[in-house]
């Protein structure tokens, strides 16, 4: 029988499929953070229920933690209360917590893979839409709301109507200077913000296989920006090499057993998808968003589009509003747009490989005097590893601020925000109105483009800087 990767993972987690109810799916790993969990714990306690599997639940603090002086008093009383609640709830229910200041604290989607908690064939959920990141390991991973968080805490299961399976196949070689971030922005531009709704995407093809795990995580991370329930990539030797020896990875004979099992987690030859999109890797370019959703993007060589040139009335209307909000005029060359702030970090591009890519660009150069540039490692471990390589010194010498781990400027709730009309080049995942602070104007880019842009003060790719060190 020819099955799809998604079906294989789905079927092995079916607990019950009662008539007239959506199937009940077992959850192997539940990641918890301070923002979407307090109401769930409260609901549990009000109903007199327990956490069924604290051993399959792992918590950390990321969304509203300060990234400057993280161990000092938290000046925002509401954030302090949320963080204190998480501490209290984890203690009360016996849940492992990686709190602020500990070696493994960080953005949920960075620490899961880093600890080896995310493994092929698992189901992973978290009260956060970018849980899709974990699909890079061949796990079925998706974001849930707080009522569902409570449901998973109480039952370790979730009710899910089975999504459709979509294939996004990217064949060929990415041109030099084109990264996983550009690849996924290209995919989202093709699918549109709602193109993946109701589907789990399997990313396939030689360009996907060629990505390292960090790149695969960047791609799966942004599946939700095309509306998809989840994104998945079949595990292979790249995956196994990443996992071997991590804290929670199987050891000894278990490692061999696990490998045997994981190798079966591929879509069989001849399997048919509910829908399929093909993209030629060679056609992709470094990509920058110009609008207020992640599908509104253009190549670095391009210009701000003219809304009148767009296909449907709804698209024209949306583009007009977006340009008004972004303070951009149609026809402006992307390289002529100046930025005020550069943010390198987030669960999309806050891993060690991302910081290395950015550091390679800024090494020996100086941030433009008109730019505020910050680097926020995705986890305390990423920070420590980067410091061991001297990346902090590279960034500091160039004029970047080197921060502590957290979501930081990705979402504008923790003090790291844009001012109204301030323009950023950001390696995060959402350019919605106000995402990085009320009135802020966000352009999504790769770490390499963010770094080059910090140097020139306008959108640039590393190749634009040649000789200017």
């Amino acid at each position, binding site marked *: 029988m020819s099955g799809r990767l998604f079906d294989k993972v789905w079927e092995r987690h079916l607990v019950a499929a009662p008539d007239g109810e959506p199937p009940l799916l*077992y959850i192997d790993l539940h990641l918890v953070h301070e923002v979407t969990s307090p109401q769930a714990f409260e609901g549990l306690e009000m109903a007199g229920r327990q956490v069924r599997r604290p051993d399959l639940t792992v918590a950390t603090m990321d969304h509203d933690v300060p990234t400057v002086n993280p161990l000092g008093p938290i000046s925002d009383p509401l954030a302090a209360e*949320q963080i204190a609640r998480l501490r209290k709830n984890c203690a009360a229910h016996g849940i492992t917590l990686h709190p602020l200041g500990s070696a493994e604290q960080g953005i949920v989607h960075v620490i899961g893979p880093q600890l080896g908690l995310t493994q092929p064939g698992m189901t992973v959920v978290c009260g956060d839409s970018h849980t899709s990141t974990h699909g890079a390991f061949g796990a079925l991973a998706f974001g849930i709301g707080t009522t569902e968080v409570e449901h998973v805490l109480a039952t370790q299961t979730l009710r899910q109507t089975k999504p459709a399976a979509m294939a996004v196949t990217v064949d060929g070689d990415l041109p030099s200077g084109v990264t996983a971030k550009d690849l996924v922005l290209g995919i989202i531009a093709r699918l549109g913000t709602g193109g993946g709704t109701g589907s789990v995407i399997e990313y396939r093809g030689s360009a996907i296989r060629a990505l390292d795990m960090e790149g695969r995580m960047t791609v799966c991370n942004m599946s939700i920006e095309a509306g998809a329930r989840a994104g998945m990539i079949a595990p292979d030797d790249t995956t196994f090499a990443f996992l071997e020896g991590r804290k929670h990875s199987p050891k000894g004979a278990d490692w061999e057993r696990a490998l045997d099992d994981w190798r079966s987690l591929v879509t069989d030859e001849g399997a048919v998808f509910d829908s399929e999109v093909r993209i030629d890797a060679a056609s992709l370019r470094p990509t920058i968003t110009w609008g207020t959703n992640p599908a509104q993007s253009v190549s670095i060589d391009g210009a701000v589009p003219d809304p009148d040139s767009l296909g449907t009335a709804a698209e024209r209307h949306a583009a007009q509003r977006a340009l008004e909000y972004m303070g951009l005029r149609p026809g402006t060359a992307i390289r002529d747009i100046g930025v005020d702030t550069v943010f390198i970090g987030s669960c999309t591009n806050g891993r060690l490989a991302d910081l290395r890519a950015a550091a390679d660009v800024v090494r020996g150069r100086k941030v433009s005097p008109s730019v505020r540039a910050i680097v926020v490692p995705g986890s305390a471990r990423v920070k420590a590893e980067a410091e061991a390589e001297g990346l902090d010194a590279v960034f500091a010498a160039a004029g970047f601020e080197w921060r502590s781990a957290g979501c930081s400027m990705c*979402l504008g709730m923790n003090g790291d925000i844009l001012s109204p009309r301030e323009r950023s080049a950001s390696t995060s995942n959402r350019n919605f109105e106000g995402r990085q602070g009320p009135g802020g104007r966000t352009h999504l880019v790769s770490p390499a483009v963010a770094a080059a842009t910090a140097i020139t003060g306008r959108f640039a790719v590393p190749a634009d800087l040649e000789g200017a060190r």
Partner: protein
Amino acid sequence: MRAVSRVDGRAVAIDRRDIDTDQIIPAAWLKRVERTGFGPGLFSAWRSDPDFALNAPAASEARVLVAGANFGCGSSREHAVWALQDFGFEAVIAPSFADIFRGNSIGAGLVTAQASEETVRALFTVLADDPQATVTVDVAERMVLVPSAGLAEPFALPDYARWRLLEGLDDIGITLRHADAIADFEARRPAWLPSSAPAAHISA
């Protein structure tokens, strides 16, 4: 969760597609640890525009929100649903909804009525002509009705979601009926799967 079989009331129209949850409730509001009190934050950035639909006098009594496609995209924050409910909305009508938003809505008892583009356009027209019109969202019959305009159109709502809304059922309670199946499943899980036990409360 309270049962809902039918929502009747005034409606607010926001003719935009891809309304994301960062607009519905900006992140600055997510620091609350309660499920209530989010109403003042609903669309707070857009409400600074005096012409925004939610600022119309009739809006404060509205029960139904009509919006463009892909409503609720973006962040998984259920706070978006709580903010809509706290403001007074009991149903949203749109041509399509983002998956997580729809799941959150059903879990919290907010009706997500998926109507055709034509129906939603017709509602925009009706509400532009008569902002006071009473709109009915009939969950049992899966129909949206505006009697004053002679509008009666079907909407889609999955059977299970409809049943839960009508019964006002606690999903956890339903699931715990399968406690034996969950325990059987747990007994069969491979031993190598990761576990964080014993709980490590690493102190900083």
